[in-house]
């Protein structure tokens, strides 16, 4: 059994227009010390997957089901109190999207990192602050940073503080939601180097959420491609980047402008569907160049021969008769 096993994780939000299917039967597993990148476009449910894992849920939850097993232990059946005391921050922690912009402006950085330790009441104040200094060094900041206020720090330093906050209890699984999207590339590269170091030195397991598939390849061993609330493809990074199976993954990769090649980027016509009323069958169907009859039914999650899985009828077709060819889709605007 893998270190983290997620099965059919589902999270719908309640709205007056109907439930928003932000996370719909998402499954993946991850070994200890590995990093999984969750890649997708805005609004496809990346942050919601993270919130479902760390159980930080808004008030308007409509459905929250599935199974999350960490180190063999089922987490979804835990009460909120048990989850808060045993799991959140201690076993699973998270650097929230945009957290560096919402650090408390009137509290010294050291205090903000120590706060959860102090709230715990188990640890004396001196020990908590000693831990803060230690953790600051771990994320590449001088220990004196503890005495500074957020506005005195650069963007890169603030993001390191956010990381420190996530590491303070020594968790084994750390979720990072777009940790570098507000930063410039050179600062981003510094943070990615730090994450790689933490991964190899501390053996941390990461879930790295990003809209940038190239950036994910800077850290991740596995990739999950999210589209319209579903994980449409998941597998070892080599497979996903070099032999993508799902038409969306293929389109996403082809839309990346390459720095050192003159191959022009292409694009996927159209836009992702709304999550209140997504297409009944395959959710990518309106944009898919391979669309065929079977796609009117929801596709099953099927294994490829090479250890990845995709949510697409083409995989079922491959084992049987001739394969559909691209651009049969009459709905699709031509590129």
């Amino acid at each position: 059994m893998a270190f983290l096993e997620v099965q059919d994780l589902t999270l719908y939000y309640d709205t007056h227009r109907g439930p928003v299917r932000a996370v719909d039967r998402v499954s993946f597993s991850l070994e200890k010390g590995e990093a999984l990148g969750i890649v997708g476009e805005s609004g496809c449910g990346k942050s919601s997957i993270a919130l479902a894992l760390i159980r930080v849920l808004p008030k308007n939850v409509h459905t929250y089901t599935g199974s999350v097993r960490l180190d063999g232990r089922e987490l979804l059946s835990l009460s909120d109190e048990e989850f808060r005391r045993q799991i959140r921050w201690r076993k699973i922690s998270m650097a929230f999207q945009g957290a560096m912009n919402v650090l408390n402006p009137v509290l010294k950085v050291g205090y903000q990192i120590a706060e959860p330790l102090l709230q715990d009441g188990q640890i004396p104040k001196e020990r908590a602050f000693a831990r803060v200094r230690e953790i600051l060094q771990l994320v590449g900041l001088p220990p004196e940073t503890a005495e500074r206020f957020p506005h005195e720090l650069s963007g890169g330093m603030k993001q390191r503080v956010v990381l420190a906050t996530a590491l303070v209890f020594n968790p084994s699984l750390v979720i990072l939601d777009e940790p570098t999207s507000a930063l410039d590339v050179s600062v981003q590269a510094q943070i990615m180097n730090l994450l790689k170091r933490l991964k190899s030195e501390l053996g941390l397991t990461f879930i790295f959420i990003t809209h940038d598939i190239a950036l994910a390849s800077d850290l991740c061993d596995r990739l999950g491609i999210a589209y319209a609330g579903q994980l449409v493809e998941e597998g070892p990074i080599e497979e996903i980047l070099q032999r993508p199976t799902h038409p969306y993954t293929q389109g996403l990769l082809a839309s990346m402008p390459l720095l050192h090649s003159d191959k022009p980027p292409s694009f996927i016509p159209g836009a992702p569907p709304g999550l209140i009323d997504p297409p009944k069958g395959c959710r990518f169907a309106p944009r898919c160049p391979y669309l065929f009859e079977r796609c009117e039914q929801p596709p099953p999650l099927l294994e490829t021969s090479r250890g990845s899985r995709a949510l697409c009828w083409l995989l079922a077709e491959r084992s049987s008769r001739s394969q559909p060819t691209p651009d049969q889709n009459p709905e699709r605007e031509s590129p």
Partner: protein
Amino acid sequence: MKALKDMVRLEDVHVHFVLRRGLFQRGIVHAVNGVSLSIAAQEIVALVGESGSGKTTLGRVSLRLERPTVGRVWFDGREISHLSEGELREFRRRAQAVFQDPYSSINPYMTVAQIVEEPLIIHKIGSRSERLAHVEALLEALRLHPVREFMQKFPHQMSGGQRQRVALARALILNPDYLMADEPVSMIDASSRAEILQLMQEQQKERGMAVLYITHDIATARHYAHRIGVMYLGSLVELGPSRRIIDHPLHPYTQHLIEAVPEPDPANRHRQRQVVPGEPPSPIHLPKGCFFHPRCPKFMKGLCDAARPALKEIESGHAVACYLYHQESLKEAKTEQVAAQV
């Protein structure tokens, strides 16, 4: 490209902003520090660099939305730096812009048809039916299908990519000779970016516009611009043909900027990236000498921290502002060092 006339020409432009901090304290933000740049008719020039490097400010100067503190701006052979708003009327029609956030330039309560038609009304061009025919043809060219249906839509009924195409239509409806596009796709989903940039390129070719394409995504600059200018702390440190800049960057800052860009490669995770330490220094207190010297791995004491290196053409069309490539300065520095040792 060389034979064509310059549509836009910036000459030693400086832009300073006075920053009030507290009652008596004042600081000067040196947003742009001596940039000269020309954009030929029918040319796309990309301006790349990190946030705060002065790209947007320079773009605004080229549109005369900002007056340069020092320096001159020319448009189609005429100096416009000191013209009054009244005298700029013709320029305001011929120079247009697209910004990062389409919501900032389009009115949420207007339909697509109204949004795109409005500039024609302001400039009193055509009868109503002529204007609408013009709008329809342009939306068709920008592939906002089905056009008739689209004309009646409101901004909130469209995807981000469609809204940005409407913003582009609004900029193009007056047939401009110059388009300034400031991060036009940075808020658009990755899978739709190429669509917008391709349309922009297509329109640029068809109309023969000059385009200034501002971006922090240097890979798109390779694909959609003829030349790339690299900015650091309000100065142009390197300028040249796009492929040349990316495949053979000369300036140490450009080299490190390119090294920092991730490309999809499963091998990436096994290696640490070469990074230049630190972050861009503040534009309030500019470093002496080469602005990059406090972070430069090739820093040469006594030379790089003494005076600013000028942007010099090293090979055809490729210019760099760095002493490593200024043979004379290098020789002098060596002689001085020898003299000092003696």
